[in-house]
C-alpha cells in the first residue's frame, strides 16, 4: 500500500493529537511527583526497622510489582467506583492508578538510594544532636535523591511510555489521539507509524538528556 501523509495539517494535530499529548504529559508529571513522594515514604517505612511499618510497605511494593500494569489499571477502574460510590472517569482513575503503581517502583529506587548513603553520615548527624527525622531530612534524603536522580528520571521515561496503557480503560492519551485521528481520516496505518516515531523522538531525546546528567553527577562521586 502507499503511505500518504498529505492529509496531516495543523488542524488535525491541534484537535486530535495535542489533546492526547497534554494528558499523557499531565499523567506522567502527576504520577512522577506523587509516586516519588509516596515512594519515598514507603522506602522510609521499609528501612525503619519497625516490623509494623516494614511488613505493610514490603507487601505493598511486592504486590504491585508482581501484577501487570494493565491489570492494576483495570483493578482501580473497577474498585474506585465501588469504594467511593460513583464513577471517577478514566482520566482521573488513571492518575490515581499510576501514582500508586509507580510509587512501588520509585520506592525501590529510593530504598537503594538511601542505602547508598554511608552509615557514618547518619552517625555524624546523631553526633551533632539531630534526631532520626532531621537526619533523614537534612542528610540522607538529599544525597539519596541526588545519587538516584538519573535512575528516577529513567523510570519516569518508562512511566511516560506506560501511560499508553490507559488504552485499556479508554482514556484519551497521546496514542489514543493518533488512533482517533487515524480513524477519522481513514489513515490508521500512517497514524500508528507517526505515533511510534513521536514516542521514539520524545523518549530517545529524554534518555540522551538523562545520560548527560548522569555524567555530570558522576563527577562529584
Amino acid at each position, binding site marked *: 500500500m502507499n503511505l500518504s501523509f498529505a492529509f496531516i495539517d495543523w488542524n488535525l494535530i491541534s484537535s486530535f493529537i495535542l489533546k492526547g499529548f497534554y494528558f499523557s504529559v499531565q499523567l506522567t508529571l502527576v504520577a512522577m511527583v506523587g509516586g516519588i513522594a509516596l515512594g519515598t515514604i514507603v522506602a522510609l517505612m521499609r528501612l525503619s526497622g519497625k516490623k509494623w511499618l516494614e511488613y505493610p510497605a514490603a507487601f505493598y511494593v511486592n504486590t504491585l510489582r508482581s501484577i501487570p500494569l494493565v491489570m492494576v489499571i483495570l483493578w482501580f477502574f473497577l*474498585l474506585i467506583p465501588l469504594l467511593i460510590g460513583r464513577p471517577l472517569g478514566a482520566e482521573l482513575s488513571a492518575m490515581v492508578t499510576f501514582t500508586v503503581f509507580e510509587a512501588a517502583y520509585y520506592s525501590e529506587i529510593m530504598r537503594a538510594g538511601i542505602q547508598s548513603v554511608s552509615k557514618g553520615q547518619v552517625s555524624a548527624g546523631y553526633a551533632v544532636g539531630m534526631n532520626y527525622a532531621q537526619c533523614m531530612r537534612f542528610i540522607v534524603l538529599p544525597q539519596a535523591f541526588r545519587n538516584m536522580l538519573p535512575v528516577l528520571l529513567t523510570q519516569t521515561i518508562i512511566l511516560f511510555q506506560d501511560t499508553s496503557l490507559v488504552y485499556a480503560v479508554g482514556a484519551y492519551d497521546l496514542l489514543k489521539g493518533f488512533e482517533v485521528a487515524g480513524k477519522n481520516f481513514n489513515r490508521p496505518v500512517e497514524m500508528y507509524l507517526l505515533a511510534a516515531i513521536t514516542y521514539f523522538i520524545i523518549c530517545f531525546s529524554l534518555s540522551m538528556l538523562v545520560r548527560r546528567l548522569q555524567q555530570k553527577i558522576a563527577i562529584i562521586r
Partner: protein
Amino acid sequence: MSWDWQVFFQDTGSGQTYLNWMMSAWGWTLLVSGCSLVVALTVGSLMGILRTTPVKAFVWIGNAWTELFRNIPLLVQIFLWYHVIPSIFKSLQSVPDIVAVVIALGFFTSARISEQVRAGIQALPRGQRYAGLAVGLTLPQTYRFVLLPMAFRIVIPPLTSESMNIIKNSSVAFAVSITELTFFAMQAQEETSRGVEIYLAVTFLYFISAFAINRVAAVIEQRVKVPGMIGGGK
C-alpha cells in the same frame, strides 16, 4: 457486596464454563510469553554481544537496535507489527495475529536483555578477553569458550526478572484481541459483572506464572554455579 465464585461455573454461551475459558486464556498467556522469551533471549544476546565486539559497525547496529526498541512503548510496537507492517508488506497479511505479538514483545524485551548481556560481558576483567586471544583463540572462540560462559552466569538474576516481566507484559496483547488472561478478564467482567472474583483469579494466575519462572531460574542458577565464583560459594 458478597462473593459469588459460582460465576466460574456459568456457561459462557458457547458450551464452556468461564473456568474453562480462563484456563485456555492462561495457556495463551504462557504461550505468548514462552515464545517471546525465546525470541528475546536469542536476539537480545546477539545484540548484547555485538555491542561488546571491537567492530565499530557491529557496535553501532547493537546500539541502534537497543535504542529503537527501548524507546517506543510496547503497545505502540504491538500496533506496528499488527497494523503497520502487514499493510506495507501485503504478503504478511496471512500471518497469524499471535506472531505479531510474539515479535513485538520479543523485540521489546530483547532491547533490555541486550543491555544486561552487554553489562555482563563488560563486567568481566578485560584480561580474560586478551588471554583468550593470546592463546590463539579467534574472536568468536574467545566469546564462545571464555567470555560468554561466565557472562551468562553473571546475568542470570537480571534475566530472571526480565522473564518475569515478559509474563506481565504479555497482558498488553489484549489490545489486538489475543484471548490471553487480561483479555479474558475484561470480557468476562463485562459479561458477568463479577469483576472482583474474575480479576482476583486472573491476578492470582499471573502471580503463580511469574513465581514459577522465578523458581525455575533459581534451579538453573544453582545448577550452573561455578565454585569460587559469583555466588558459587565455598
